């Protein structure tokens, strides 16, 4: 009797939990709890709100409703893998793991299951080589584009010559933080600047030694590859030793409001590279207000709209929706599966017209994906914090990065992976 009741309850729960078959399912591996929740919440809100908007305003994507299935990872790799396993059977079209650790675990799994994964601005950089990583996409930018963009910015403000200059890299002492080192070393050799590496142990609340070393060695510029509490602590320490804030530049994961607001006015002038625009001065935000927030359908409290990480989630969802449209066009059906979604992602082309049509003119770079290039254009912009106004400003266009250096490194790393995993490079 008890078993029958249990079975009935389980069946009812499954009915409620499972999406309608015709839905386009987008699992959201979010982290709304734990030490990194402040970064995870706005991204998850932006990602969900975009799909709510297209459902409410446009009736879905190509006539099919989008459904976001959220699963809490707590930014924990094991939980992330559990989330993948528990949601992949729901008709998942694409995964955005939002964690480099989870990404590395899911690369072989998604390859085996034939589900594409989009790791925008994080994950395994060499996944840009689509001939090896057929199911992984990291357009429009990867970590090495970020490293190159930082150097390009320094070249730009120094009239094209940074020979003899000193750059210190303050980085999270983890696989993520070490990602830019090879690229920066190659660029240091190419441009003749001196690179100093300063690792910071997790979580990064204590950085006195690193900043005393910076004070002693007086580098001209400091770059940062941090996450979570490491970022505001570093910016505060830089302010404490009176390091010029305009000479301090972070990767996009060190460039949100969470990183500068705790430091107050002292963070004024701090820079970060970015692959999408900032603020809420785009037509789409009026639609989000009307169709999502005012309708009481916002994913969060509505207080994150227009923040850097909300915009990043919004942008990721827009790129996913555009890939769906491409897949629907290629296969002639509105009800696509993961394999079709992969085809759509590989044929994706984002133009200024497409972004403008979505109410996001100039929101990100224009780029085209192909089998050979899953990494997109690799163009990167620079944003700067205005503490008085309490907002980020985009201070440059999205500009190309060093394709020669990055391309060679991607080739080398992806071929190493291909050899280790018996993958034959190719497009079919």
């Amino acid at each position: 009797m008890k078993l029958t009741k249990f079975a009935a309850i389980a069946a009812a729960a499954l009915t409620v939990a499972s999406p309608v078959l015709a839905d386009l399912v987008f699992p959201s591996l979010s982290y709304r709890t734990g030490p990194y929740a402040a970064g995870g919440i706005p991204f998850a809100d932006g990602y969900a709100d975009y799909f709510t908007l297209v459902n409410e305003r446009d009736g879905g994507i190509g006539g099919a409703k989008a459904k976001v299935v959220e699963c809490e990872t707590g930014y924990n790799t094991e939980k992330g893998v559990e989330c993948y396993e528990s949601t992949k059977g729901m008709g998942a079209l694409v995964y955005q793991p939002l964690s480099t650790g989870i990404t590395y675990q899911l690369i072989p799994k998604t390859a085996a299951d034939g589900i594409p994964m989009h790791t925008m601005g994080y994950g395994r950089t060499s996944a840009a080589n689509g001939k090896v990583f057929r199911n992984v996409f990291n357009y429009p930018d990867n970590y090495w584009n970020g490293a190159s963009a930082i150097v390009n910015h320094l070249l730009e403000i120094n009239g094209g010559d940074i020979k003899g200059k000193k750059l210190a890299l303050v980085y999270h002492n983890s696989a993520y933080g070490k990602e830019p080192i090879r690229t920066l070393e190659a660029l240091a050799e190419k441009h003749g600047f001196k690179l100093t590496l300063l690792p910071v142990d997790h979580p990064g609340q204590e950085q006195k030694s690193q900043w005393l070393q910076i004070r002693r060695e007086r580098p001209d510029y400091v770059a940062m590859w941090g996450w979570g509490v490491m970022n505001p602590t570093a910016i505060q320490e830089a302010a404490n030793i009176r390091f010029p804030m305009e000479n301090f530049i972070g990767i996009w994961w060190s460039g949100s409001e969470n990183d500068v607001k705790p430091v107050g006015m002292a963070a004024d002038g701090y820079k970060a590279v970015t692959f999408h625009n900032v603020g809420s001065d785009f037509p789409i935000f009026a639609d989000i207000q009307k169709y999502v927030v005012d309708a009481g359908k916002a994913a969060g409290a509505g207080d994150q709209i227009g923040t850097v990480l909300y915009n990043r989630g919004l942008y990721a969802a827009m790129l996913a929706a555009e890939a769906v449209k491409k897949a629907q066009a290629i296969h002639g059906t509105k009800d696509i599966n993961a394999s079709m979604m992969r085809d759509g992602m590989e044929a994706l082309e984002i133009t200024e017209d497409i972004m403008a049509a979505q109410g996001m003119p100039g929101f990100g770079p224009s780029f085209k994906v192909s089998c050979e290039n899953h990494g997109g254009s690799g163009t990167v912009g620079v944003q700067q914090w205005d503490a008085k106004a309490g907002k980020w400003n985009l201070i440059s266009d999205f500009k190309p990065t060093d394709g020669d250096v990055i391309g060679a490194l991607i080739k080398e790393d992806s071929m190493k992976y291909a050899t280790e995993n018996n993958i034959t490079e190719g497009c079919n």
Partner: protein
Amino acid sequence: MSAEFYFGVEVFLNGLMAGVMYSLVALGFVLIFKASGIFNYAQGVMALFAALTLVGFQNGQIPFAHLINTIFGTELSTFGWTLPAFAAILLTLGVMILFAVLVEKLVLKHLVNQEPIILFMATIGLAYFMEGFGDLMWGSDIKKLDIGIPQGGNRWIEDHTAFLGGDNFYGFYIDTLDIYAAVIAAILVSSLVLFSKYTKTGRALRAVADDHQAALSVGISLRTIWVIVWAIAGFVALVAGIMWGSKSGVQFSLSLIALKALPVLMLGGFTSIPGAIVGGLIIGVGEKMFEFLIGAPFLGGATENWFAYMLALMFLVFRPQGLFGEKIIERV
């Protein structure tokens, strides 16, 4: 003397300052362990919760606003007023005392005479509960904590020491916030020592620490003592939360400062208040000097956490009770 020598002195001084910050966290552990034999896993989360509450009061934030808005469809966030730092600290202290009463009534009372490991497990549960409760009450966004303590390199010290090491030396760098932390820690430890030595309640605390059964037999209320100890530990957590929160904002990683206190406790002993301070200073200086002399130049850096725990491990091998801990001899 060369500039390099003075840089070493600078690292040494900053190690002392960092040690004081570690000691502030370690003190809370010592107080509770000394009085009740409980290793309070929740001490780091208590610092986080205290800091969240303080910022919430300062900013006039409505507690549980997000929950209320979700249930009732309202758009509440703040009361519309702000509180001066001193008033907010007093109110937060009140919350931490209330917290101590509730912990005693809802958790500890039911676990009297249980094995220490059971009490330890209870504090793990308490830590997770408080982390979620703090999130629900005040939100998980990162908050700026400012109670008026200045930050940044102390100009006076820099200017008056710049002549020492020649052109390449810029004067000793000491963060003004760290100087405040050192003064506050000195006052805190002196007050705690005076309180435990010269007040009736303090003597009762020491009696309970020495022998629960004997203390009970002379009429000391174990439950009252536990409330007092947890309230004092709550106050110490508030001080630690203020100092660490001022450095890096109030966010959930603040609870991880407990990791920095563990080697201090292993070195200084779990039952000694001066031990927490001396242990903190040794760990702070040791890890900073090791990083300066060996870690950064030869090992690629980021050796501080490793060195702190290695140093603590070495002490454990030769003096398991720590520098100032009591050696427990149990006779059959």
